[in-house]
């Protein structure tokens, strides 16, 4: 029999139900796996070995280990966003998603590594050191939810939660060969997610297959009175969308996503993936998203602007790191923030502060908001003629550690295909669709209309059942 750690959540749930396995043995298996491989991968920053006995024995995820990205608050557990500035911060409350997981019997086994404050696409900016890609330890796992994606790929957890502001769930999922879904903005409560860019952030599942993603989203989704931006739309039973049926489904393939900068192997894998769906009866047509080229610039104004304000609270006054040598309050702010934040966090805070400054607001922030509307309108128009849009998730497979750290712009471009969904608030998934000649995973992205996660699950599930990319495991 396969090791328990290597199984999916839905498989384990069926086995638990049939009395074949106990959740304690799943936990033992997963903890043993972490002990064995995490020294190489560095995906898990904190392991919580004690809490299993208090979890309810019933619920939709009863007995299933879930790893949570380190920017999601778990009551009493150190939550740092992989930043020195939040050293020792133990939230006095659970994030809404964490509360929902606990209520459904999930076992919160620990915290996943990430780019500091989710600023990055490579998981290299963490104060805990970089996470490594389980498929090639010399390479990055993607980011910012690199720890969550790498842990799922390395079987260090059964499921994980990530957060996605510009691709932070989907890009690492693609680079690690797992499934990652960014839900519609407002589908999942952000209460307890330490904000990067409030108008873009969304929590979502990172799992071994589509069925687990549907299961996990069903648990965490829903309106929350603690989050004014969550939307009161009923949560369907997503597992009912898991049907092998794309007959007559209209797939749009945007011309603008297959241009200069895309790795030929990525393009080939994605086009082959689209062919698979076509053969199963989907209608494929080329579409036009004319403002795509402005998405990255727009994102790098709105994201940092909101971040500069969201991160202002990290000042050493109430919690986290405080420099002890300060003479006065200004000195305390300066020293605490200079030492507490890493280079990329400082870069984004400066960028955002500049964009919001008097005299620049109209030229940058306001203009970015207008372009954001244009990008949203592109999608509205596109969805008149198609039910979903398929693109590559990332222009390249995983790159080498250190390869892009000296060149922020080329790093930022690795989110070129994922950013538009955040700007437009759309749901989007990344599913494995092939491997490069170097054996690195490639992801295919499916986007749909707001609150139409069901179509995404149907297409993703059909594709997954017709292929076996998701069944491959890295050698560790």
């Amino acid at each position: 029999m396969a090791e328990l750690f290597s199984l999916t959540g839905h498989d384990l749930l069926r086995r638990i139900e049939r009395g074949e396995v106990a959740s304690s043995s799943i936990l033992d298996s997963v903890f043993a796996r972490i002990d064995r491989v995490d020294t190489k991968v560095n995906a898990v920053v904190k392991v919580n070995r004690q809490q299993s006995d208090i979890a309810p024995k019933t619920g939709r995820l009863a007995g299933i280990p879930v790893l949570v990205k380190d920017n999601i608050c778990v009551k009493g557990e150190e939550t740092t966003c992989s930043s020195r500035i939040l050293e020792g911060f133990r939230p006095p409350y659970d994030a809404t998603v964490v509360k929902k997981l606990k209520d459904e019997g999930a076992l919160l086994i620990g915290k996943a590594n990430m780019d500091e404050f989710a600023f990055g696409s490579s998981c290299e900016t963490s104060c805990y050191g970089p996470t490594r890609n389980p498929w090639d330890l010399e390479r990055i796992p993607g980011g910012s939810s690199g720890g969550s994606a790498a842990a799922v790929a390395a079987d260090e957890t059964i499921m994980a939660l990530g957060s996605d502001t510009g691709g932070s769930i989907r890009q690492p999922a693609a680079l690690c060969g797992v499934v990652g879904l960014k839900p519609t903005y407002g589908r999942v409560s952000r209460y307890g997610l330490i904000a990067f860019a409030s108008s873009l952030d969304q929590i979502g599942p990172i799992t071994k297959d589509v069925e687990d993603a549907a299961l996990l989203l069903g648990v965490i989704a829903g309106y929350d009175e603690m989050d004014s931006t969550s939307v009161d739309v009923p949560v369907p039973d997503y597992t009912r969308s898991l049907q092998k049926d794309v007959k007559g489904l209209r797939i749009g393939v945007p011309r603008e996503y297959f241009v200069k900068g895309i790795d030929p192997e990525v393009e080939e894998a994605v086009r082959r993936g689209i062919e698979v769906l076509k053969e199963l009866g989907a209608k494929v047509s080329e579409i036009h998203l004319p403002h795509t080229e402005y998405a990255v610039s727009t994102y790098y104004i709105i994201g940092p602007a909101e971040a500069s304000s969201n991160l202002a609270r990290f000042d050493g006054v109430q919690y986290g790191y405080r420099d002890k040598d300060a003479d006065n309050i200004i000195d305390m702010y300066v020293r605490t923030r200079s030492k507490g934040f890493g280079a990329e966090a400082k870069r984004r805070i400066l960028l955002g502060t500049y964009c919001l400054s008097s005299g620049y607001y109209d030229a940058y922030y306001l203009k970015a908001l207008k372009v954001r509307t244009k990008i949203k309108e592109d999608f509205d128009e596109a969805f008149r003629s198609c039910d979903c849009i398929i693109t590559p998730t990332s222009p390249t497979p995983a790159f080498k550690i250190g390869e892009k750290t000296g060149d922020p712009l080329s790093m930022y471009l690795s989110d070129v295909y994922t950013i538009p969904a955040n700007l437009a608030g759309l749901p989007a998934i990344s599913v494995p669709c092939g491997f490069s000649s170097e054996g690195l995973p490639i992801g295919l992205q499916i986007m749909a209309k707001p609150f139409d996660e069901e179509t995404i699950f149907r297409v993703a599930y059909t594709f997954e059942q017709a292929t076996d990319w998701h069944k491959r495991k890295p050698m560790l």
Partner: protein
Amino acid sequence: MREDENRYETVIGLEVHLQLKANTKAFCGCSTLFGQKPNSQTCPVCLGFPGSLPVLNEEAFYSAVKVALALNCKIQDLIKFDRKNYYYPDLPKNFQISQYDMPLSYDGAIYITSGPEKGRKKIRIKRVHLEEDAGKLLHPEGANYSLVDYNRAGIPLLEIVTEPDINSPQEAYDYLTRLKAILEYLKVSDCDMEKGSLRCDANISIRVAGTDKLGTKVELKNMNTFKGVRLALEYEAKRQIALVEEGEKITQETRLWDAEKSLTTPMRTKEEAMDYRYFPEPDLVPFQVDKAVIEKIRRELPELPEAKAKRFSSEYGLSEYDANVITGQLEMADYFEECAKIYQNRKTIANWLMGDITAYLNAENLTIKQIGLSPSDLVGLFNMIDEGTISGKMAKEVLIEAMKKGIKPAEIVERRGLSQISDTAALERVVDAVLARNEKSVDDYRKGKKNALTYLIGQVMKDTNGTANPALVNVILKRRLGD
């Protein structure tokens, strides 16, 4: 005022910050009670903890709408909040949730009356917006650290900004008094400057009277009473006039009022002014207010000071000025009406309320509700005067004692034996005794010295310890003297 000062006109705009009475804070469920143990009324949201999110408190929002409507403002169609970014340790998130380019309401006005001889003056309200309060820094004596109390952080705050329609420190005072009256009528705030539930900053500039162009404005902060606002403005107007008279320029700056030294000192200049980097608060979704709900709030507004004053004039025959003064405080207006229900001479009620009673309240810094004198007690006092039981002069003494000790006037009169001797037979005996021992005065009177009568009345009053009914004494004396 120096002669040349009359050449200048003062232009003032006021910015009032008002803590709205609400059971919970603006964006979380914490209590807003004043004077509790530091940091006992906080939660992750008002402490700005990572991951926490604000949710607008409906009660605070609707009470803001109520104020806006009472100030005759228009209500914005789309309600939107913004972040005002600045660093200060009493501000948990290092930004304040406020409203920038789309205040909750705008274009309102209220009217002030600055004295019996002056008419109404319109003061336009530029905007009223909702924001959250900050915490409070505490500096323990001798300590090399400061402490923060976040109980106040997140309490709903209303900013009420006037147009520069105020033309004297007295008008500023009158505006604040009228605004306070309206807010009291609405029961939306304690309006206590000393507790900090109402704070006021002022913008002031001067210009040669009759010209249109506004002078360079100076912002004044740190006034802790309405009187302080008036004094600070008076000082600042003089300071600016003196500068201009000497040919110097006025610096655009913020100055702090020092109440002890009675002067203003520079705080920061325009160049040092902060860039707040306002941008829309992404954690709060803009929303439309139901017009029907606004109309319902408008219909349910209580009778406000102006309307009440008009009614008091027509219903009770008070002069416009008296009606204005009496309705200037809700408690006073209610008190008047209680009295008016059981006492017909309304002018008398008004006179006593505006005279001796107000003087006493002001001197003791009390409100009419805080003294143990009920409207029926006061009317009882009026009745005793009317019935001749006590004199008007005696009534004033009784009133003061009643207010001080909280004893009913009738009881004081009774206990101190103050009721006037109106028993003719008893008084005749006293008068006869007085006449018997004052033959010379009697002679003088009969010879035509009419003021001898005053002396004789005085003697009767003396013998009765002032309790004789003076009118009756007069009649008896004249009768005995053969007039």
